[in-house]
């Protein structure tokens, strides 16, 4: 396989299928500017930018959980590639001038995250991004020394220096573009495939029964980096364009399983929903640039954020087997038990389908976590409701973090259906949750808190859907002091 590193073609030989980009950079190429702080996607010290070969709009990713094969044919920019003629890039200079580094270990990661924002800002006319855009862009970068103020300031200053783009020259493809994508990209005892079409994906899955699918790798790669698992056969579906599209189909919004969160953000078909506000708190920018909706479902986690949303939307998930047979399940039926789904060996998720009319119903999505940014939910609550003259015409309530699987609150829904939405009715529905869920106590929250929160969030949602939003500080984001 091959990729472009800071503009230069790298032919990778003798790599194994489980190699991460970060390890390759540090151990094989001696490019040690990119750091490892956690190897789990949580700290951002390993942040690099990637772009398609002919593209100049880079995206920040966590190289620690990026499988090397997934950057096949793409451009990778690391901190070593920012200087030009021995001169620091404006992002780097701003970090120095603002005293943005103390121990310096997090610094290359911040520089790369800010460089991504810098490049996007240049593309939009070179205006200085707002404070919110800066804190969003670095929410996946942890710094234990500075307290962030000087780093945010560097973000506010970086465009005031003489401007200089990165990825100026799209790399020209000199490698072999016409590889047979049914053959492994990385071969040997451990194999890494990267098909470009669904039919080739099925063909590979048919001959490799032990294969493990990988999309963004933001869940799967942690098996490798945290538990030292070695997968024998990895099939990367991120190069299958037809899995990565969003469109309208027969009264449904179809979201391909390979659609990444950053593609969903701001998408016109979902513009009327509160999805963006939730996605801004799903992982970090680096995670959203890689993580897919299909991966979120297939991973089977009870605390994933998308399943409750999809349930509230009344969405179906479409599963395809090696013979090309398709089955559609309502999302709530896709989950069988703790980390168990309908997926059989050789199956893959092709897409989710959201009924157009349900997507347009009023919704509220609330995520509760210890930390506001880049944290896994303690409780995730998604509610959709249509009212007619104060009476509940339709309602769907779904939770993450409340059971072994993401689940709907059917009893509460039943109580609400057809009722006039008074405060008492709302309270009764909230109380019914106590009988419907037996959540666990764990490192994120206690069972009693989870139960109370399920009710608090439902109350907040139903009231907001009935009365309009109360001035709620946590939805408004930035708040001022007294």
């Amino acid at each position, binding site marked *: 396989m091959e990729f472009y590193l800071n503009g230069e073609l790298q032919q990778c030989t003798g790599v194994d299928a489980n190699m991460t980009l970060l390890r390759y950079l540090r151990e094989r190429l001696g490019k040690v500017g990119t750091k490892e702080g956690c190897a789990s996607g949580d700290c951002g010290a390993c942040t690099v930018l990637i772009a398609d070969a002919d593209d100049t709009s880079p995206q920040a990713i966590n190289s620690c959980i990026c499988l090397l094969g997934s950057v096949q044919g793409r451009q990778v920019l690391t901190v070593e590639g920012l200087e030009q003629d021995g001169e620091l890039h404006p992002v780097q*200079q701003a970090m120095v001038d603002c005293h943005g580094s103390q121990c310096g*270990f997090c610094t290359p990661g911040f520089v790369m995250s800010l460089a991504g924002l810098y490049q996007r800002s240049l593309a939009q006319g070179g205006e200085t991004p707002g404070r919110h855009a800066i804190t969003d862009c670095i929410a996946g970068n942890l710094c234990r020394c500075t307290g962030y103020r000087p780093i945010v300031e560097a973000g506010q200053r970086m465009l005031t220096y003489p401007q200089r783009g990165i990825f100026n020259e799209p790399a020209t493809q000199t490698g072999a573009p016409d590889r047979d994508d049914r053959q492994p990209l990385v071969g040997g005892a451990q194999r890494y495939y990267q098909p470009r079409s669904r039919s080739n994906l099925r063909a590979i899955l048919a001959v490799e029964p032990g294969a493990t699918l990988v999309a963004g790798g933001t869940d799967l790669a942690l098996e490798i980096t945290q538990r030292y698992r070695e997968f024998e056969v990895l099939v990367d579906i991120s190069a299958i364009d037809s899995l990565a599209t969003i469109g309208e189909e027969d009264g449904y919004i179809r979201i391909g399983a390979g659609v990444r969160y950053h593609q969903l953000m701001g998408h016109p078909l979902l513009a009327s929903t509160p999805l963006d506000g939730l996605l801004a708190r799903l992982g970090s920018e680096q995670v959203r640039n890689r993580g897919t909706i299909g991966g979120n479902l297939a991973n089977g986690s009870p605390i994933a954020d998308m399943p409750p949303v999809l349930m509230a939307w009344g969405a179906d998930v479409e599963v395809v087997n090696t013979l090309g047979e398709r089955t559609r399940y309502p999302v709530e039926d896709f989950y069988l038990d703790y980390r168990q789904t309908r997926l059989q060996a050789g199956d893959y998720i092709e897409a989710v389908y959201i009924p157009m009319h349900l997507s347009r119903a009023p919704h509220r999505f609330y995520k509760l976590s210890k930390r506001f940014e880049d944290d896994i939910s303690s409780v995730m609550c998604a509610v959709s409701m249509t009212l007619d003259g104060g009476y509940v015409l339709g309602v769907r309530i779904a939770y993450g973090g409340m059971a072994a699987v993401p689940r709907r609150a059917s009893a509460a829904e039943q109580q609400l259906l057809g009722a006039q939405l008074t405060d008492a009715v709302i309270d009764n529905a909230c109380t019914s949750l106590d009988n419907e869920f037996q959540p666990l106590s764990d490192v994120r929250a206690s069972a009693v808190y989870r139960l109370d929160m399920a009710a608090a969030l439902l109350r907040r949602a139903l009231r907001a859907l009935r009365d309009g939003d109360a001035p709620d500080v946590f939805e408004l984001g930035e708040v001022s002091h007294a």
Partner: protein
Amino acid sequence: MRKLTPAYNPNAPAVDPVGKSLPQDSAARHVAGSAVYVDDMPAYPDQLHVAVGVSSHAHARVLGMALDAVRAAPGVVDVVVQADIPGSADISPVFDGDLLLAGDTVHYVGQPLFAVAATSLEAAQRAVQLAQVDYEPLVPRLEVTESLAAEDFLLPTRRSRLGDPEAALAAAAMTLSGEMAVGGQEHFYLEGQVALAVPDEVGVQIYSSSQHPAEVQKLAAEVLDLPLHAVTVQVRRMGGGFGGKESQPAALACLAALFARRTGRSVRYRMPRWADMVQTGKRHPFWNRYTVGFDESGVIQALVMDVAGNCGCTADLSDGIVDRAANHADNAYFLKNAAVTGYRCRTNMVSHTAFRGFGAPQGIVTTEAFMDDIARRVGMDPLDVRKANLYRPGDSTPYGQEIEESVLVDLVAELEHSCDYRARRAAVAAFNAQGGTLRRGLSLVPVKFGISFTTTHLNQAGALVHIYTDGSVHVSHGGTEMGQGLYIKVAQVVARALGVSIERVMPGATCTDKVPNASPTAASAGTDMNGMAALDACNRIRKRLVSFAAQHFGCDEGAVELRDDHVFAGEQVVPFPDFISLAYLNRVSLSSTGFYRTPKIHFNRETGQGRPFFYFANGAACSEVVVDTSTGEYRVTRVDVLHDVGASLNPAIDIGQIEGGFVQGMGWLTTEELSWNDDGVITSNSPANYKIPTAADVPEHFDVRLFQRPNAEDTVYHSKAVGEPPLMLPISVWCALRDACASLCDYRFNPRMDPPATPERVYWAAREALRG
């Protein structure tokens, strides 16, 4: 010889860098990715990597270990158990009990049992998973309150006393009693623990990420049964330390050194984050209880307080940590009569260790909680209660040290005014009076922090300064750079002392063969001590240069000046490099060591009395929050800080320390929650479930200012230490969160809200207030 050209331009700006906001010495390398950390060092051929097999029980006898599968695993080159250690297996920093590899008993989940060296980190990690260990489980002790009840202490209990607290409590108009469990904290330095050992013909050369290279050297030598001079330890920089790299790095360095000696190959031991979070010590959780007596105007008459540190399974540095918790129970307040007792409780947990503040934060947060409770009881604004109790010159601390400066009163008054406290208090009250689930809270909290190691002998430092023939200067000292800006501050001191520009001064890596027997870089004293030692070295060289210049140019020594990169001798003005090469040709020594011992300090551990601190660093912060009391979610909306660093050597670095310390302390008190399950397994074992603050947690209004007053003591250019004290400033955030909850019961009382105030704890506090 070059011609001496007097190129001095009297109109050029002075080059003296002291007091200037120079960037961190490696800033340009940090942003370029070219600053080298231990794991960035090039691999030697045949390099090996280490992983350890650890205990899965909190307390058990080890009946046997089957390691054949480990030895046979792909890539494994060597495996060691305790019996393979040639020297001492005990690597404790002060007392004993910290074993490099466990013997027949294990005392916490994650305790190393055996170690593997293999050709890659992954191979080593996979190999250790193949071990079969046979345990006989024993009953673990996991609650600090149980240790306290059973008097299961690692070290003797110590008390300090002032006046007659029992009588004063009995006589006090009002009293309050309470208890508080204070959470610990994971360091989460961004660079995990790491060491690299390279064997050489006499012993081993170690590159460590350590705040205490001299200790790493000593312990590695003891493990290898070598004299100290056969082991050299170098530390160029750490990717953060915060106390977590004071005693903890020794185990990694010792194992790497052991394998290096056994195999003759270079050995790298880097702990992955998940291992670091399980295997290394954290900030001590504490359990504190108190009775405080006060009068109707909230003035404290007496305090009786117990602080019980959860030390984990060994003493490590807990003696001093519990001392500091106890002797900061007064924070900024005169207690009149006090009895403070510190307990060092044993539990079957990883041995807790140094963390920025060294116990003081855990004492102070309890005190600040009862200051707020006194205010509710007497119906006063909490700030007025605090102000009424602030130390004034002449007051005595419970440990017998007299307060000499009057910084606290002035500083608090200045912040109260500059942050507009009274008007904002009124606005917060008005907002909360509207009712509703959103509530605001406000709090202004002072902090006083004693500067010096409480272990008196550690208050010494050495430095080494060379001037080379081109006039460039190299300085090294026993202090280590972990991001706090020590290297640039000492370089600034050296530049001023020699009268040269900062560009001439290069800070060199800290190395045990340049400056021996150094103390750890800790207790905030790095610049105070190493700066003074470097100054001493410069003064020695300077004296020789002045005497040479006077003699060479035929003038009085009094007429010689070193400044602005030149030497002025009578009528002569010589550029510094030219003068230096002249001195060299005239056989003047251009190198010197320097030494410093902190004056005035003494402390009697038995009586708990003395002057443990050279001086106090002071500060205050005012924080405002808004809380959604229906869920416990909150945001910090504004922070104003005024902090006393004496005459700042480098305001940008000092402000960076204050901001960084504030946010780190805020994390400790809010979202950072350590948790263990009933078997003693730590469940907060990854950044995915242990949440340190992000940029979005820091309010846009985060105003940090320096209190402008030089240190009254004769410290390096009258600056003050800054590393630890700011960590306690965000206690104001915690108090503000509680203040917001208290609005739900019309401020009749403060609900209990043991730190960390996670959204869940804030929610329960709000529930308690609502119940009334």
